């Protein structure tokens, strides 16, 4: 077989008449030695590959056997069977509830509205209502985490977002931000590292662009507020005030303060200052999102409560890093990033458990929730609600499955409501009543 096929008259480079089989065999033989050397160095995947599964152009597959087999079995000798088999194509889907299946069938399957098929939903008639923050009653305790659910409109193509207790939008800053250099994401054991850099269109644009979409989706929105000064937080809240779907603010205090460089969330004084300033700006509930990277997260939690916070989210991502051993430098463009996913769940549950004993305001648990049992861990550790974040990237149905699973749990355990499990794992010392 020639290295090119030309029937039309086009000016072409010189011909070579070796067959592809010949050349391939040569290549396979020639590579054998080289591979053995490489195999010694490359035990498994490179980091860049593991990060996303994108082929690392510099790397050969690590398995010599597969490699040679592939080279020798290449289908220019035995072309694969083409699509004429009589076998009926499999039409099954993921194991999931009937309700989820129906919803995920088609793109933009009729704008999902709460009332339209409320009667058919597994959670209907089950008391899942919680007070996720003081003054914030939600129909169920399942939220989506900031930065993992965009503005809610994107996943609305796959799931009925109006079934969620609420969504938390992407971190919103006063002005638009282009975010961080690549790479922005890397895979880790049972998790991911990210360094997005708060890329967002800015508060004014968020309000202008999504107010109507949120209302149309019938979703409750908690705006995740980020900034580099106290004024930044106040400005963002000011811009979002009066947006009908917005039911609360969540302050992302894992940002460095421009004045001192210290993260707002690492310093009880700074965290309290931001909380007070935002409380003065709005009548909506204000939730402060704790960072596990604080030296004393319980002290920060207490300071926020004293400053008037209506609730706390525990936790934001945990600082982490991966090194690309081939390029001999960190994978992420910024070096370090935030670890999320199941890898951080025990840390998040522990912080929830500690903070729940230190404050009286409600806590929203976040960190590695993938399923109903994970959510129950947080609730039992004292959280009044949970956020599903990174898990959604793997399983877009995860938040909906957790709602259905919690409903089944309440029914299956003869509970009056999901509230009956909140804090049941906490030590029996009575809470201060204030």
């Amino acid at each position, binding site marked *: 077989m020639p290295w090119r096929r030309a029937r039309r008259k086009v000016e072409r480079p010189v011909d070579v008449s070796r067959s592809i089989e010949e050349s391939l065999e040569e*290549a396979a033989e020639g590579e054998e030695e080289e591979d053995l050397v490489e195999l010694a160095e490359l035990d498994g995947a490179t980091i860049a590959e593991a990060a996303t599964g994108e082929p690392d152009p510099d790397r050969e597959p690590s398995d010599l056997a597969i490699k040679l087999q592939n080279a020798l079995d290449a289908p220019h000798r035995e072309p694969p069977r083409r699509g004429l088999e009589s076998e009926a194509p499999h039409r099954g889907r993921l194991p999931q509830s009937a309700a989820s299946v129906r919803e995920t069938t088609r793109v933009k399957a009729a704008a999902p509205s709460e009332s339209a098929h409320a009667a058919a939903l597994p959670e209907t008639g089950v008391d899942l209502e919680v007070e996720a923050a003081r003054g914030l009653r939600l129909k169920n305790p399942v939220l989506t985490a900031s930065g993992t659910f965009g503005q809610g409109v994107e996943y609305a193509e796959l799931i009925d977002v109006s079934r969620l207790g609420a969504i938390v939008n992407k971190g919103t800053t006063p002005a638009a931000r282009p975010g961080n250099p690549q790479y922005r994401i890397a895979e880790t054991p*049972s998790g991911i590292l990210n360094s997005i850099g708060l890329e967002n269109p800015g508060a004014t644009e968020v309000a202008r662009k999504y107010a109507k979409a949120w209302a149309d989706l019938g979703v409750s929105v908690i705006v995740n507020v980020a900034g580099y000064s106290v004024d930044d937080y106040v400005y963002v809240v000011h811009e979002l005030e009066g947006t009908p779907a917005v039911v609360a603010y969540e302050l992302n205090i894992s940002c460095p303060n421009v004045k001192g460089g210290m993260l707002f969330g690492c310093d009880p004084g700074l965290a309290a200052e931001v909380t007070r300033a935002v409380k003065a700006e709005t009548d909506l509930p204000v939730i402060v999102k704790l960072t596990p990277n604080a030296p004393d997260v319980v002290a920060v939690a207490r300071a926020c409560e004293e400053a008037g916070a209506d609730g706390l989210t525990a936790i934001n991502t945990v600082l982490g890093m991966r090194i690309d051993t081939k390029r001999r430098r960190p994978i992420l463009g910024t070096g370090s990033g935030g670890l999320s996913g199941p890898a951080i769940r025990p840390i998040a549950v522990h912080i929830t458990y500690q903070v729940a004993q230190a404050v009286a305001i409600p806590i929203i648990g976040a960190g590695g929730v993938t399923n109903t049992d994970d959510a129950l861990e947080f609730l039992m550790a004292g959280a009044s609600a949970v956020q599903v974040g990174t898990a959604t990237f793997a399983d877009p149905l995860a938040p909906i499955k957790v709602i259905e699973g919690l409903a089944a749990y309440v029914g299956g355990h003869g509970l009056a409501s999901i509230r009956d499990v909140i804090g049941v794992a906490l030590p029996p010392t009575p809470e201060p009543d204030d």
Partner: protein
Amino acid sequence: MILETARVLSTSGIGQLGTVLRIAAPEIAVQARAGQFAHVRPGLSFDPLLRRPYSFNRIDRRAGEIELIVKPLGSGGEWIASRREGDGLDLLGPLGSAFVIHRGTRNLLLVAGGTGIAPMRVLAEQEAPRRNVTLLMGGRSVAHLWPSDLLPPSVEYVTTTEDGSFGVRGRVTDAIGPLLGWADQLCACGPWPMLAALGRLRDAADRAASTYPGRATLLDTQIAVEQHMGCAMGVCRACVVVTAHGNARVCREGPVFPLGEVAFDEGEPATVGVIA
């Protein structure tokens, strides 16, 4: 887009390109277009966690089938590449933008580097009955080339290999010259350095007189790019590249972009400057 539990119909190793999975995914197949991709879950657990994006390498709407080229890279890639006939596979797709072939195009030039062959094969199959199609494909060695007998017979092809094991020694840009004057439209997919090299050709054409051979074709080139992805749903912004219109998500606005809109920096995608 659709979340579909598909079923692997057959698998075959294609040299060093990877394993080609032929998959029954009727709902995705009926919507899929060249350049778009499927985000494939690498197992049933959350470890490894991230889905892997694979560009469609064949779309057969009538049979309800797609094909993907999967390199067994990383534990997730290995898991997906090791699926066998009858295995289920959780696919999210079709995602992203697609190549647009102009109605008036008579001579279509497709340029593929390495696994960038995937969408080019879809275009070759789709466009061969309608117009003259030439595929210029390059790889590191002969084992990194798509087998020519798996291309429609009417498609002409030219091959380049970096080690000279087959066809022209060098890269696709070393062989593209004579084809540029012929083509009315150019679509390309491959590693960033290849796309950046095409970008430099385009820049040269842009500066040159209107008589420069293939100038209009180069100016109008469409490319499909790759970037590390998280959600592939447009929410996480992990996958952005810098374009003439600011940051664009490869999973949404891309992966297909006009060549002239993508910003390169020394053979790699240009990066956002702000660090915070």
